[in-house]
């Protein structure tokens, strides 16, 4: 039987989707519904990717403060995208078909993450503190390199890159969305098959190895999966730094369990609900007079601080 709290989240998810689709619906109804439907699908894919990636990452790092964003995963993605524009030229880049672009960005991202973090793991296996330090430095390095390349390319090419630099659900490409959904689906099925194993890995390397888990191999696979999840969300809408931290804290506080079979769906649902409600409020209450990131980080940040102060998050 599904957990009561998960059912509650599913209900909230359905309500917020309905609200988003139907609120203030007038004029050419089908046209508007189609537009909103695409955006809603984008929000769902991004929310699920961010929620799952963050919980997985925190399971690996044994820490509730670290997120892929802090380790420089999304900065790496932006760097990869900028360097592709830099080396191919903006005209060639914009001429490439959407799904191909998405696939290329994702593959480059996973390869770069595997090369960098794989090398890091071989040198300093399981020294998570060193990893965090390196991650923070990597993030800074990636952002600086990205900024440097963006200053070198000409303004029209910069405009192409700029679109990916800030979180925006305005222009989700339909073919990109389909490619992202398929990838998300495949990854989720893979993660689903690892669920009990993830519970053991959350014990940490030592205890998990004593229980017969080939920790290093699984850690490597999970890092690849996390890189792909981050690629999905960053490719579709750009970096949303704070959301992952908020979502995983809420999922842990609400579910109060170590079991990923409950944590992962909860994190995915919470992320989607926050994104859908945030985007709805942003479009209809604020009339697009801000950015979604500001809405989410302001409201989400307040909620996070309140929960932290009340001791609900630990």
């Amino acid at each position, binding site marked *: 039987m599904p957990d009561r709290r998960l059912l509650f989240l599913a209900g909230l998810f359905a309500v917020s989707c309905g609200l988003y689709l139907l609120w203030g619906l007038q004029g050419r109804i089908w046209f508007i519904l189609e537009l909103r439907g695409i955006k809603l699908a984008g929000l769902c894919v991004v929310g699920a990717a961010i929620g799952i990636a963050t919980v997985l990452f925190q399971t690996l790092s044994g820490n509730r403060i670290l997120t892929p964003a802090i380790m420089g995963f999304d900065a790496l993605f932006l760097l990869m995208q900028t360097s592709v524009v830099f080396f191919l030229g903006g005209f060639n880049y914009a001429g490439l078909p959407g799904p191909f672009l998405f696939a290329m960005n994702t593959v480059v991202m996973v390869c770069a993450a595997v090369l960098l973090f794989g090398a890091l793991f071989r040198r300093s296996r399981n020294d998570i503190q060193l990893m965090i330090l390196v991650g923070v430095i990597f993030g800074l390095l990636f952002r600086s390199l990205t900024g440097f390349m963006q200053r070198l390319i000409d303004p029209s090419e910069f405009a192409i890159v700029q679109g990916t630099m800030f979180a925006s659900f305005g222009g989700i490409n339909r073919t990109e969305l389909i490619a992202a959904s398929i990838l998300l689906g495949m990854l989720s099925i893979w993660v689903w098959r690892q669920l*009990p194993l993830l519970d053991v890995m959350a*014990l940490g390397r030592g205890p998990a*190895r*004593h229980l*017969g*888990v080939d920790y290093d191999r699984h850690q490597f696979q999970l890092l690849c999966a996390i890189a792909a999840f981050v690629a999905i969300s960053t490719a579709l809408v750009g970096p949303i730094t704070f959301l992952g931290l908020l979502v995983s804290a809420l999922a842990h506080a609400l579910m109060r369990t170590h079991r990923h079979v409950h944590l992962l769906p909860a994190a995915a649902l919470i992320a989607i609900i926050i994104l859908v409600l945030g985007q709805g409020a942003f479009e209809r209450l604020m009339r697009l007079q801000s950015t979604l990131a500001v809405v989410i980080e302001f409201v989400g940040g307040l909620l996070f601080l309140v929960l932290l102060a009340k001791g609900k998050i630990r």
Partner: protein
Amino acid sequence: MISVNGLSHTIGPAKILDDINLQIAPGGVTALIGPNGAGKSTLLSVVSRQVPAQSGEVSLDGADMKRIDHAALALRMAVVAQDVGVASRLRIRDLVGFGRWPHAKGKPSPKDADIVAQALAQFDLTALADRFLDEVSGGQRQRAFVAMAYAQDTDWLLLDEPLNNLDLRHARRLMSELRNLAQNAGKSILIVLHDLNYAISWADHIIALKDGRVAFAGETQDVMTSRTLSALYETDVSVMAKDGKTFVWHHN
């Protein structure tokens, strides 16, 4: 039988283990003793394959430990390490339940639940079973980790200073349960001990390490003498007998 042949281990500039050769016989309690920094914990973590052997070889029943599959090893050897920090919010019952992972692989049967319940009862944890691990005392947490290894139900059980944080009632109960497991269930137990009185009362065999080398090893009553222990710790230690019980006097 665990055999250690020519094992050496260095951490940075320090030689922690220096050409160790040992046979640890199955079926009995073997205590590892020695002063601080003698290499007891390092030896235990190399034998439990937590740390790979740098030079030399460790074998379990004749098979090189390096070649034993992770999952297969977990069915033969359970380990209780020193102060394990667990990040996830776990209830004690769930932690002990993880001891069944090598057998059940995430699909626990009623039999596994029975074994977990028995392990909880054995280590006096039934009343605490639904408490979170970060909401109990250090000694209770320590017992939960021992119960988890117990639930793993392996032929070999390796424990690194399990008496840390335990009060005398639970320390004595743990040692007597280990002795019971060795005598009646045919388990083999390797345990790092600091308290010589527990070692002399409960262990069948003693391995004493000093400066990364084996100082002495053998049957407890043969090797635990005032002379050997005083030399081992470079401190006056007297082994005494009173009312048929042996104890070690070293406090003053």
